[in-house]
């Protein structure tokens, strides 16, 4: 499948060989702070996660930068009815350079093209995670409101800001060369 590219950020499918790279950010408490999962302690957990969760997932991509094959993060889109929700995580060493923003933009372009039934792409960010809120705003999402005590993270209910990108928000881009199915 043709990798969707945005600046020097590209997305590709994961393989089991990416376990060590995934472990690097999945074991970092700073990266997993706002996620349900606790930090991994062993690379085998990352390998299991790729096999059991990533490979069967409807849409899960590795984020690569500057032409390097080793991923620096991941982004996934989970479809439900006419909408889908996007989640992402980037290794700490690559924070603050717009990697997540470009990955979200690339993922949005890809799923809106791939899924004609998709009307709404949504994301939630913890109220205490302004960096993630900025990613979504810069990627063109609209902040819709705060959902109080919406999810349990690390044992406590958290307030989450909800964002969306609807099909009507996206400008018509010139048709990209069609590749693959």
């Amino acid at each position, binding site marked *: 499948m043709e990798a969707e590219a945005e600046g020097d950020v590209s997305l590709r499918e994961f393989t089991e060989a990416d376990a060590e790279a995934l472990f690097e950010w999945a074991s970092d408490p700073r990266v997993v702070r706002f996620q349900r999962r606790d930090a991994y302690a062993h690379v085998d957990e990352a390998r299991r996660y790729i096999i059991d969760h990533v490979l069967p997932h409807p849409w899960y991509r590795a984020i690569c930068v500057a032409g390097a094959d080793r991923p620096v993060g991941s982004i996934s889109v989970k479809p439900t*009815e*006419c*909408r889908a929700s996007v989640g992402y995580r980037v290794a700490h060493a690559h924070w603050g350079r717009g990697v997540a923003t470009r990955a979200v933009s690339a993922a949005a372009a890809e799923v809106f093209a791939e899924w004609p039934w998709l009307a709404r792409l949504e994301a939630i960010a913890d109220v205490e995670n302004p960096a993630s809120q900025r990613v979504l705003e810069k990627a063109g999402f609209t902040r819709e409101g705060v959902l109080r*005590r*919406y*999810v*349990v993270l690390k044992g406590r*209910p958290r307030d989450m800001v*909800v964002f969306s990108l609807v099909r009507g928000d996206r400008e018509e881009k010139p048709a990209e060369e069609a590749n693959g199915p």
Partner: protein
Amino acid sequence: MDTITLRRFDLADADAMMSWASDPVVTAFTTSEPYESVEPLLAFIRDTVLPHPWFRAICLAGDGPVGEVSVTPTEDRCRAELGIMLARAHWGKGVATAALKRVLATVYANLDGVERVEALVDVDNAAARRALEKAGFQQEAVLRSYCVVKGLLRDMVIYSFISTDTLVE
């Protein structure tokens, strides 16, 4: 206004339930299709309503049910979703508002771990929005292009009442 009470459903309530479950005006804003016969409704009561963690019949002054209200836990154990339907003959009398207030006064004690009750309602469903607001729910957002209802893409308003919110009246 008559006092409303909430009680568990019974299979014997199927005929009373048809009064709202078969009404296309009542189901217009929901993703449910109106029931055309009582047999599938009996199956719904047996398979969904009876085993449900919190599903109640809305009764007026000791009479039979005039509506239903449910609070369904989601994949996140702190959050549950509310659904309500009322027979059209009892619209416009404050029955839904009274039922919602009763729900909020009792449901948190019944559903372990739930701290948030939310309701999604069509932007154009003015009557339902008013009932939620009068019962003390807070509007949090308009979720754009949220779902397809009866073939049309709809914006839905999301309301919540969390366990520390103040009960109205």
